[in-house]
């Protein structure tokens, strides 16, 4: 079979074409994730189907000095949620938690962290049987986050 010029190039780039194509496909494949705002590879978003006890765990590092915030979304049927930062239990609520009370609420996880500090955050959510999936998100809200976002604003 005779090949055209591009066919010959394709043949000659043999082992190089696959890593390059994988990278490009990864890039295009990750676009829908970026589109949903689950991007920037900070420790965001985890999902679990709740049974009697759900334990979500993550490790993250702050991009800049500041506070780490957690937001619950879609949490239904939660009872006695507990959370710990670097092994120290942090109360989520001072008052008893009602079912669905966490939906959309925000909580401070760690007061002040230094850039690069790592926080191992564990959240235990005791849920009512048959409860809906729990989605949680970590948001970095350092004073330099504004500058980061501004830098992100630029076209490159």
């Amino acid at each position, binding site marked *: 079979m005779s*090949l055209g010029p591009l066919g010959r190039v394709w043949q000659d780039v043999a082992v190089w074409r696959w890593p390059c194509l994988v990278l490009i496909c990864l890039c295009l494949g990750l676009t829908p994730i970026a589109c949903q*705002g689950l991007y920037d590879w900070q420790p965001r978003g985890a999902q679990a189907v709740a049974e009697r006890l759900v334990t979500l765990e993550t490790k993250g590092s702050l991009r800049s000095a500041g506070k780490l915030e957690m937001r619950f979304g879609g949490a239904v049927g939660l009872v006695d949620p507990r959370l710990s930062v670097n092994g120290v239990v942090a109360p989520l609520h001072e008052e008893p938690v009602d079912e669905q009370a966490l939906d959309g609420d925000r909580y401070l996880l760690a007061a002040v962290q230094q850039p690069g500090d790592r926080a191992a955050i564990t959240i235990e959510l005791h849920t009512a049987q048959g409860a809906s999936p729990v989605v949680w998100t970590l948001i970095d809200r350092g004073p330099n986050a504004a500058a980061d976002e501004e830098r992100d604003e630029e076209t490159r």
Partner: protein
Amino acid sequence: MPRTAEESDAGSRALSWQRRWFDVHSWIGLKLSILMSFILVTGTIAVFSYEIDWLLNPEMRAFSEVDARPASWGTLYDSATAAYPDGELRFLQVPHGTWWASQATLVDPAGGLMRIWLHPQTARYQGATRWFNVQRFLRQAHRHLMLPTRVGIVLVSLLALPLLLSLITGLITYKRFWRGWWKWPRFDRAPRIWLGDLHRWLGLWAAWFVLLIGLTSVWYLVEVSGGSAPAFPNPAPVATREAALPQGFDGAALDRAVAMAQAQAPDLKIMRISLPGQPAAPVSVFGQRSALLVRPRANAIHVDPLTLTVMGEYRGEQLSVHQRLSEMADPLHFGTWGGLASRLVRFVFGLALSALSITGIYIYGLRVLKRSRHPRWPQTVTAR
């Protein structure tokens, strides 16, 4: 006069070196061609990515009204907060161009970033678009292939090294290249000839641009490898307050804060206002002053939103060489330093650079195809 044996030896040695440089040039251009072309093409289109979004989203368009003055920052603030009372307003910025709406960026109750579009003169709310748009797609695809930035930026900016090497080897292998600037490609000849002419001609005209893109990309590699510039000077601590913004903070208060900043720096052309996301942060006013080749964030005035006093200021000229280099990289790489004119130049040369990569691949294909069809061709020519 016939050449001596010594001259002939020196000639063939030079030819052999040139041949080796040429092999390096083709090898780089060929093996990395797929990825390189993708990066070059996305980077070129990204120059006008804002405009593509402008065409796609009517909310982003705004046409000036006769004799109308620009709305104050406070009016824009009030309009944005009235449209999204539950949102956390983070930025306000001047329109991108004459026919553009002003943009406010806010964090919605679900934690996502949104763009709010407001008429720059009436401050009327025109609509909202999501944070992720064509500009974000092109930026993220070009800058780090949508991968984690630690990995993606390294991978992409590493391509600067073969790019620069291609430039050097290309110039070395092009004999008396300085004569080639005015050598119009011979489009009436066979594809391999005219494509080769075009490749060399574009390469010569775009050499400065290849150097610029290569060097700024190397700088990004330095930054991601730990050589990023130190942070800007911090403002003095602001008065204690409980929330990100003081109770009752509104557009009028923002106007007073902006007036304080403007009184402190009358020459500051305000481009962007950053609103505090937490109680310890000030309202920051950014823009352009006299420093050349810096982003708006290189000139800042910080104002305490509670006491409305200036808590800190810095300007481009006060930044260290390291910070200035860091500030300079983006305007040069994006071509934004001279407005629309420089972006047009950036786009045209971006096209030329993309064409260099693509024509290079095609020429290689034609050459190997010819060699495979006429395996003894070089010897036949020599025999003649």
